[in-house]
């Protein structure tokens, strides 16, 4: 098991650095970091000065090598934009993003899986239709709009929740719902489809025939098999939520890592973008790895693979 994990880890690092090299080149090709750094009011001469001071006039490979060498020693440099160490900047923003991501995926799983199961038990029933409607609505509704509606209703009209910010746990309720609702439909549909598939299979009929209770059939036999693809999907969704909650973070003024990444790209803030991409790709790698482990635990057949 250990060599397997080490091999995977090595591969993961390789993937992470390939990603970082590609993103570095893309950022370099997409715009002039000196111009972005100088800001809107700078003159051509200002930009030239900044180009010299920051060393943007050196070849790209040299600059990437520089970055890589420092990154390997754990030094992600200073954000061009904030003039602060990237590591502490990202650590601070990640707290918000992680809280939001974990709450969001839990909310999505806790609502989508039961709904999917219920929908699969009685296909084409009213319950199924309602679940279908909820999932279609979730898929179709832009999250910024949903967010604003929640703000209007719960923060302004009812005055129950604070409209935006990240100061207390109450600030996270609406963003969690918006983010989770967006991830919910796919999970629900997959649970439903998986359950329908499994419920029609031979071993379920056998389980029922030998007199197993319906609850035991549903949860011990059916769900355990149907949930396997859901776990993989949830892992990807989780990665997406951490990196892609830009809209939700922006509407609720949450200042998380996703919003930071989005803004940093526009600002050509190379060190911040590079470090964030590394962090996000590591997240994806870790989550898919965890999902594999979890699936192996759920399905012994996968352990040998």
């Amino acid at each position, binding site marked *: 098991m250990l060599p397997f994990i080490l091999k995977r880890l090595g591969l993961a690092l390789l993937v992470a650095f390939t990603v970082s090299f590609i993103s570095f080149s893309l950022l370099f090709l997409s*715009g*002039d970091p000196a*111009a*972005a*750094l*100088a*800001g*809107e*009011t*700078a*003159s*051509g*001469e*200002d930009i030239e*000065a*900044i180009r010299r*001071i920051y060393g943007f006039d050196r070849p790209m490979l040299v600059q990437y090598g520089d970055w890589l060498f420092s990154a390997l020693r754990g030094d992600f440099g*200073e954000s061009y*934009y*904030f*003039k*602060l160490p990237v590591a502490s*900047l990202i650590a*601070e923003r990640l707290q918000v993003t992680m809280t939001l991501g974990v709450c969001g995926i839990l909310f999505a799983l806790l609502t989508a899986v039961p709904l999917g199961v219920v929908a699969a038990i009685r296909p084409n029933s009213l319950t199924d239709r309602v679940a279908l409607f909820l999932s279609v609505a979730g898929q179709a509704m*832009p999250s*910024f*709009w949903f967010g*604003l509606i929640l*703000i*209007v*209703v719960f*923060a*302004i*009209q009812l*005055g129950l929740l*604070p*409209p*935006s*910010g990240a100061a207390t746990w109450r600030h996270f309720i609406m963003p969690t719902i918006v983010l989770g609702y967006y991830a919910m439909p796919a999970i629900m549909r997959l649970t439903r489809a998986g359950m329908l598939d499994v419920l029609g299979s031979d071993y379920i009929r056998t389980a029922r025939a030998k007199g197993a209770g319906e609850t035991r059939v549903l949860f011990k036999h059916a769900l355990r098999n149907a949930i396997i693809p859901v776990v993989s999907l949830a892992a990807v969704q989780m990665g997406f939520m951490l990196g892609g909650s*830009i*809209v939700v973070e*922006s*509407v*609720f*003024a949450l*200042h998380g890592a996703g*919003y930071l990444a989005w*803004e940093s790209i*526009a600002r*050509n803030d190379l060190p911040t973008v590079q470090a964030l991409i590394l962090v996000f790709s590591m997240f994806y790698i870790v989550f898919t790895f965890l999902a594999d482990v979890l699936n192996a635990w759920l399905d012994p057949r996968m352990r040998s693979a």
Partner: protein
Amino acid sequence: MNKRLLDRSALLALTLAATTALPAFADKASGTLNVAFTKELENVDSYFNSSREGVVLQRAVWDGLIYRDPETNEYVGNLAESWEWVDDTTLEFKLREGVTFHNGEAFNADDVVYTVNFVAKEENGVKTQRNVNWMDSAEKVDDYTVRIKLKQKFPAAIEFLSGPVSMYPNEYYAEAGPSGMGLKPVGTGPYKVVDVVPGQHFVLEANENYHDSPKGQPEIEKIDIRTIPDVNTQMAELFSGSLDLIWQVPADQAEKLGEMGQFTVANESTMRVGYLQMDSAGRSGDTPFTDPLVRKAVNYAINRQELVDALLQGSSKVVYTPCFPSQFGCIQDVTEYEYDPEKAKELLAEAGYPDGFSTEFYAYRDRQYAEAIASYLNAVGIDTDFKMLQYSALRELNMDGEVPLSFQTWGSYSINDASAMVSQFFKHGSLDSTRDEEVLEWLNVADSSTDPDERIEYYTKAIQKIAEEAYWAPMFTYNTNYVFSQDVSYTPTADEVLRFVDMSWN
């Protein structure tokens, strides 16, 4: 994120909110004024940011040697009691005594010397070099007398010293540097900073020991600033009473907010000027814009008044000069091109384009203005291949001389001197698409003369020629909306700087 959708949703949010007219609960009782910034401020250290939000904090936290009254545009002493030109490149200041920084450090000549010498050195990387690169060094004469040496003659020095150049505490800055200053700013200003979460949250407290400054004394005890990127969310916060003041509010939303009657909506002009830049030097290859008849046709084709009335609204005005009217030297006695599409067509025909021509047309902001401009041009036969780019991308193209026609804007960094705009673009720098020798010569005299009359004379020549030759098509000035709770009393100024020191509770 789709901006247009966002704008539309704002209407919905507003209508819904308007159905339950809640009273606004301002934080008058707690003495805290809650304000929103839209953009994440990069660094509170004013030498290391280049955004409007940074200027707002700079004016609150620090002081300059000189102060310009935003109403009368007169210069009075602030940290300096008086000043005089020793020669063309040396300014001597008598400093105010008894001023202390927020950390208790006493203000004296050493602080001025340290600050000037630090910011003037290019390696230290001050972000907007133009604000500081005219200074060579500073030297101490005695504890409260200091001389600033200029690199060359620079009459706008007084304006810059009253604006972006603020004085830092030497001992603290030597130790903390820009990143330390950004996290724990220390100045002499009317407000001291008590908390900074980079880019997100800034808390200011009134400086009880503020010196007898022309800025006046702070009245509001505490200012709490949060960054809220979405304007709709800002409005929601305003409705729920957790914000007291928002600014840079789009015209349509400000109008709706005004109609609700719960908030004060104030509109003020800004120094930003919108203009069309034409490649009269022919840097982008064979372009019709090298012909003055074509450039005049473009000028006649634009209905500036309609743009102002229908789109910009508020305190915006039509301009024909490549500078903002209040700026020193920005004379208004120039050729004015009234809207006349027939004349535009005649001029095009005379120039050899009876059926018009087609050109690339670039813009980086205010898409709806750019589209309106494009439709005016189309109406006289100039077909536009419209391209919307990010600011930095368009500027790069522009510096490489590959832009035949673009919609540009310039805010002059709130510097009330024509050199901050005309000289920025007509002195053969990389952004100069005109490259007129005469204009360059005149601007060189105007920018470096210490005689105000001579400066006016030469700016007049340059600006009149730019208008006569129709090198640009200046169109309008921008405006901005401030919306605040009725508990707040504030009169915005025309330079788009929020002045907390001028705010009070009703």
